[in-house]
């Protein structure tokens, strides 16, 4: 192996009193893709910013060396470092929405990067267009004159990449480059990075929390936990046999179709605070197999295989046997076939929610945003119906309209035969008890000025189910125990709890009124994967115990595969395909469903990859394309597709598809 391109040694960074990066060691070869994997707050982004020497004002690099081609970047003067940034070492960020200067044209921003490192003024314009073309932006001459807000998120990230490429870097640091993007757009951007890498021999340091993205793009990886690297290996070796208990639990906490009916491994507790010195393993408090020495001694590095290193006492030679033997037992839960044929509890027919667009001084209505445009669903008792789609497809609006939190424009919502659409607040109240909702952001969904007990008891009070406060608090404490939290939490404020705990409190609040249906609006999207596992387990347990029905709104197909019984796929305000989960996910018939499924990265590098990549972005719901909404992006579109929206065709008794290419069955 030739000399590494990047060598990081003993890198330690503090922010205030917290040592967020502690003794990190990394090596990257030329042209390699190396992933730095970890959950939020593990220090992976701070590592990246330390390499660029772009830490926030409170950040300080305490020790270490960062050698790029043998030159220690930490010893360069700031002026010298500027000649490295953007030239040999470039970086792209998580939020393309805010990472471009809003008042400068795209072309000018790229040209600035070109000029800073190339100089030759005459060729700048040509170079800008060349870069825009290289990152796959159509009509670059026009786009170069546009401003960032005129571009979609995916386009902006492409522009960021173009800018990073301007100085012909040897190493690109990509900090969660696709986290803010939809899955089909993520596939485009990851594909682009791979192509560029093959063309130019660029090395990529990919910072991510997404095991699937790592499995699909990286050759080697390192796992970070609480500021420290705990394991490093080739991607293949890691996914075949993760060595550190944390890594294993991380993989086991991923929801997949195989784990249906089983509980996900959840990591208890939380990451330790980083403002103290560690005397033992950082993971010890959460590790199911911790030994006495894990508390007392810092674990040294052990070799778990060729090029596979792990920082864990369990790999000490005399303990190896026990280390490799035990696969944590996965409890087999029984799949209760509830409600398969029961009458639907909730039946939605042709639901429409349109928002008028007002313009001008007189506030005339000049158009409609057709957020939800004719959605029909059926939810049976004790079942989970997943409503899947990318951002802006209308799934959240549909969920809120179902509960009359947004007034539907048209259509019917029948709960046990009662029509809910158009009910006044007062007449809706008798149904509130049965229909509840959990939101995505557990921070915003609780009133910060109310005690947890009052938050949970609010429904009991509003609906007159428990008149006195002591009674409500007692009930709240019981509910907290039910969702796996200490009952004493009733006397504390929401901000004292972590994201996962808050989501539990929100679930308890919904359960307080003893509902039959819960609309779960992306309840795990703001959470780390190990915490997501806890919440998914909880939801599943509650369904089994209480016979709840869930309308589970999500963009995450792996969660759908794990949790749902039935699924409806939405695109631009309409359901394009729905059916039982195994039908839709294993035998998808609509081209959009297929593209969506193939775009999801799988956390298994051996998995066979179908390559079905969608071009372009989802159009605006204020001006949906005529005919089938998907046809402008559909790889199989025919001229007829633009004529009329296809009627639903039944592929089986339970599986319906809106596509003219699908032949209806019998």
């Amino acid at each position, binding site marked *: 192996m030739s000399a590494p391109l990047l060598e990081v040694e003993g890198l330690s960074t503090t922010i205030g009193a917290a040592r967020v990066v502690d003794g990190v060691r990394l090596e990257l070869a030329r042209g390699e893709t190396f992933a730095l994997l970890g959950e939020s707050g593990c220090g992976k982004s701070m590592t990246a910013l330390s390499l660029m020497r772009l830490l926030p004002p409170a950040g300080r690099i305490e020790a270490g060396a960062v050698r790029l081609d043998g030159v220690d970047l930490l010893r360069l003067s700031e002026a010298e470092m500027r000649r490295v940034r953007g030239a040999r070492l470039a970086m792209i960020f998580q939020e393309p929405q805010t990472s471009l200067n809003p008042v400068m044209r795209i072309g000018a921003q790229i040209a600035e990067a070109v000029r800073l490192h190339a100089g030759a003024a005459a060729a700048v314009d040509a170079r800008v267009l060349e870069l825009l073309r290289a990152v796959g932006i159509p009509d670059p001459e026009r786009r170069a004159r546009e401003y960032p807000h005129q571009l979609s998120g995916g386009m902006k990230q492409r522009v960021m990449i173009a800018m990073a490429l301007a100085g012909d870097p040897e190493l690109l640091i990509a900090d969660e480059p696709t986290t803010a993007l939809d899955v089909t757009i993520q596939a485009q951007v990851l594909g682009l990075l791979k192509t560029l890498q093959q063309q130019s021999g660029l090395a990529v340091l990919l910072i991510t929390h997404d095991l699937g993205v790592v499995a699909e793009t990286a050759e080697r990886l390192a796992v970070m936990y609480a500021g420290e690297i705990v394991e490093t290996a080739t991607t293949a070796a890691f996914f075949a046999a993760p060595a550190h208990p944390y890594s294993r639990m991380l993989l086991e906490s991923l929801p997949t179709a195989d784990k249906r009916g089983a509980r996900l491994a959840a990591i208890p507790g939380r990451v330790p605070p980083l403002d103290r010195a560690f005397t033992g393993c950082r993971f010890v408090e959460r590790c199911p197999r911790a030994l006495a020495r894990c508390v007392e001694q810092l674990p040294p590095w052990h070799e778990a295989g060729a090029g596979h290193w792990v920082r864990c006492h369990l790999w000490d030679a005399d303990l190896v046997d026990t280390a490799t033997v035990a696969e944590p037992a996965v409890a087999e839960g029984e799949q209760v076939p509830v409600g398969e044929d029961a009458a639907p509890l909730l039946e939605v027919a042709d639901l429409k929610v349109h928002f008028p667009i007002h313009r001008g001084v007189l*506030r005339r209505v000049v158009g409609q945003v057709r957020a939800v445009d004719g959605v029909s669903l059926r939810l049976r008792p004790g079942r989970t119906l997943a409503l899947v789609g990318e951002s802006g497809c209308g799934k959240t609006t549909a969920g*809120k309209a179902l*509960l009359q*939190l947004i007034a539907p424009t048209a259509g019917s919502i029948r709960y046990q035969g009662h029509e809910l659409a158009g009910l006044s*607040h007062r007449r809706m*109240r008798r149904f*509130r*008890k049965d*229909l*509840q*909702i959990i*939101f*995505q*952001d557990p921070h*915003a*969904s*609780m*009133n*910060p*000025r*109310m005690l947890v007990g009052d938050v949970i008891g*609010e*429904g009991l009070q*509003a*609906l007159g189910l428990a008149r006195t406060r002591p009674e409500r608090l007692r009930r709240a404490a019981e509910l907290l125990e039910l969702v796996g939290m200490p009952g004493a939490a009733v006397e504390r404020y929401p901000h004292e709890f972590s994201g996962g705990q808050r989501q539990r409190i*929100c679930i308890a*609040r919904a359960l307080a*009124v003893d509902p039959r249906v819960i609309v779960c609006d992306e309840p795990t999207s703001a959470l780390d994967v190990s915490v997501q596992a806890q919440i998914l387990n909880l939801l599943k347990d509650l369904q089994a115990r209480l016979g709840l029905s869930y309308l589970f709104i999500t963009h995450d197909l792996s969660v759908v595969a794990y949790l749902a019984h039935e699924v409806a796929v939405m695109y631009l305000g309409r359901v394009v395909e729905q059916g039982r989960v195994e039908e839709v996910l294993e035998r998808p018939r609509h081209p959009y469903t297929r593209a969506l499924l193939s775009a999801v990265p799988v956390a298994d590098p051996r998995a066979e990859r179908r390559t079905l990549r969608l071009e372009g972005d989802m159009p605006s719901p204020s001006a949906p394309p005529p005919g089938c909404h998907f046809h402008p992006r559909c790889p199989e579109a025919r001229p007829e597709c633009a004529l009329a929206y296809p009627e639903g065709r039944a592929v089986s008794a339970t599986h319906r598809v809106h596509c003219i290419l699908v032949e209806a069955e019998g």
Partner: protein
Amino acid sequence: MRLAVVVLLIWIGAALCAPWLVEAPNRVELKTLLAGPMPGAPLGTDALGRPVHERLLIGARVSLLVGFGVVAFAAALGTLLGLAAGLLGGWVDRLVVRMIDLFLAFPGILLAIALAGLLGPGVDNLVIALGMVGWVGYARLARAQALTLAEREHVLAARALGCGTWRILWRHLLPLALAPLLVEATFGIAAAIVAEAGLSFLGLGIQPPDASWGSMLRDGVSYLLVAPHLVIAPGVALFAVTLAVNLLGDWLRDRLDVRARSQGVM
């Protein structure tokens, strides 16, 4: 900050206790015109021989009355209109927004001057004139708060739990909307005190022989060279109180972590 609190306590204390502390703020004493510090008048006397320190105490009373009166009037009116507009929407919202825009199209202090001039002198008219100008800021802020808070998920959750409109308003919107309004109101007190003094300075507010810091300044300007203490004393009092109230506002804003603030028009 501690100094600011001391200043504020002195101001409020002086204003409340003024009736017991002063003997004859309006009694003309021709033997001691424009005198410097002397027994019975530690801050000297004015052009009619009246003791400056007693008139300062009376002025404190006026400024306290007007400061709190204006803010109470303006904040109540503005918050009510703003919340109503934000929560009810429709024509109510359009009407309130039009009114806000109309008042914002006017330089605030000019409107207050014109109103005070036309309404005639007196503390009550002063409060009305300044309140008519001041409500706009609170209305804008309250409306913006209502609009953003109503979108928040805990409000949606409360509705999903069957809470009625009043309950949501009372438990979920008002407590959260209050912090920025409180900060705005604090700065509003300073603005109202300065505005009162300004109007009195122009002869449109408190009328002789009653004392206000503004009218004392107005009278003092004529004797700037011979008796600078007539300008310095009320000016220092006004400046110190304004500064202290502003410091309190800054401190509150940092404590309550309020970022939104309407651009004051006064």
